């Protein structure tokens, strides 16, 4: 498994380069918006990736509450962190795109506002994890993730209705997409997914290692007063002898 990581890293790098080439060179120039429209190839795939990661977080949170498996919790944490990164990209590229094209930085349109609320919920999720004890954080954060998931449809729906009553320009517009653009979009999304996978995997490994070190330290601090237990310190997994309920 571990050997796959560098392979994935190289593959991701290649895909990203190819995706950039596709987005900036190969994709046709949009008729009305011009070259600025190319930001679309970053804005949209980031959004899809973020949503996917938050979905992973939701599933991991529910599974954690049932099974209480610490690895599942690590996955939840990791997907939330990387998800927030991609969500930030969406929120930054949105205004950058909007300003030259529609003349405004921000509009409280359905998609952008819902993404903002999603971002807020998950930032509060990360803050909750940071501010609670490591023993309680997993369960509390999992509960918050479920609340967030219940909230998002309500957010979307309420803003959608509000906008039908008080219409404003929609960033990203609607309408059909040229098949050539669609192809470039998908290529970029694949590249972003690889990148997300790489980041998640790397962060997951880091987190698992950190937890193993914690366990070993805990054991060592207790065994420190005991005589003749150096063998156990060398292999903390054996010493801790997990026999779960």
């Amino acid at each position, binding site marked *: 498994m571990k050997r796959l990581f560098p392979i994935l890293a190289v593959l991701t790098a290649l895909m990203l380069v190819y995706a950039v080439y596709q987005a900036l060179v190969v994709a046709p120039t949009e008729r009305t918006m011009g070259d600025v429209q190319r930001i679309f190839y970053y804005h949209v795939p980031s959004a899809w990736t973020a949503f996917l990661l938050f979905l992973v977080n939701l599933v991991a949170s529910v599974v954690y509450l049932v099974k209480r498996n610490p690895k599942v919790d690590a996955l939840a944490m990791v997907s939330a962190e990387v998800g927030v990164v991609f969500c930030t990209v969406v929120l930054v590229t949105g205004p950058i795109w909007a300003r030259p094209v529609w003349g405004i930085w921000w509009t409280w349109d359905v998609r952008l506002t819902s993404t903002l609320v999603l971002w807020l919920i998950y930032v509060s999720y990360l803050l*909750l994890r940071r501010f609670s004890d490591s023993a309680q954080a997993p*369960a509390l954060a*999992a509960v918050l993730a479920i609340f967030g998931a219940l909230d998002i449809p309500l957010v979307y729906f*309420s803003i959608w209705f509000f906008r039908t009553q008080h219409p404003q320009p929609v960033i990203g517009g609607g309408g059909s997409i040229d098949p050539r653009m669609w192809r470039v979009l998908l290529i970029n999304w694949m590249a972003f997914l690889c990148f997300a996978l790489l980041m998640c995997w790397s962060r997951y490994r880091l987190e698992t290692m950190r937890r193993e070190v914690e366990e070993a330290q805990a054991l060592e601090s207790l065994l420190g007063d005991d005589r003749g237990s150096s063998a156990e310190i060398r292999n903390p997994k054996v010493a801790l002898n997990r026999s779960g309920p």
Partner: protein
Amino acid sequence: MHKPSFTGGDAMSLPSSTTRGTITRATLTKDLRLEWRSKDALNSMLFFSLLVVVIFSFSFDPLAEESRRIAGGLVWVAILFAAVVALNQTWARELRNQVLDAYRVSPAPPNALFMAKALGNFFLVSLLEALMTPLFIIFYNLRALGPAWQLIPIGLLGTWALVVNGTFFAAISLRTRSRELMLPLLLFPISIPAVLGMVAGTTAILTGENSAHFWIVLLLTYDVVFTTACLALFEKVLEAE
């Protein structure tokens, strides 16, 4: 739910539904009685609400023609801030002397405790609203151009929306550092659809320009969804050590 075996002990085989209601009622009456005995916290909260109304009225010119459009938003934002103060003290008495441990060790269902606290907060925040709303009406010369009676369901449903999640997140915040800051950090993002509903609904009625029906239904949906979620998940929060 297992029925444990025990020797003797009268009055222990009540059906669980009666027990749940009894416990909620007993907890609620205890809380209201204690709140009444020491009116300090209540008085400070009332005064804080008054201050919020005054400051908002200074900041947003109440005499402007547009005031009717923004009053809905102002009232609810002011209520939101006053409510946070009330919500932050939800579990204050239980924190002293670790009373929650006594609750956890008993057979009482956790969401009976939750319901009692949420209802207590509902009364408390409604009391604050009863002070703030007339003041806003006076300062902003508010008069509803739409059907004013619809403000009642919006008020009730909106208040419950804030209070049910607020009580829940107050319990989550108990387990964190910066407890009192954590509550609004968690509450505000999740409350966005409800706040939109309250504000848009109130504005619709005040200006008479739109129907508030959708917003009332939205608030009702929000309340049902999150009351269920809170009742279902409170046990997990209470038992997080």
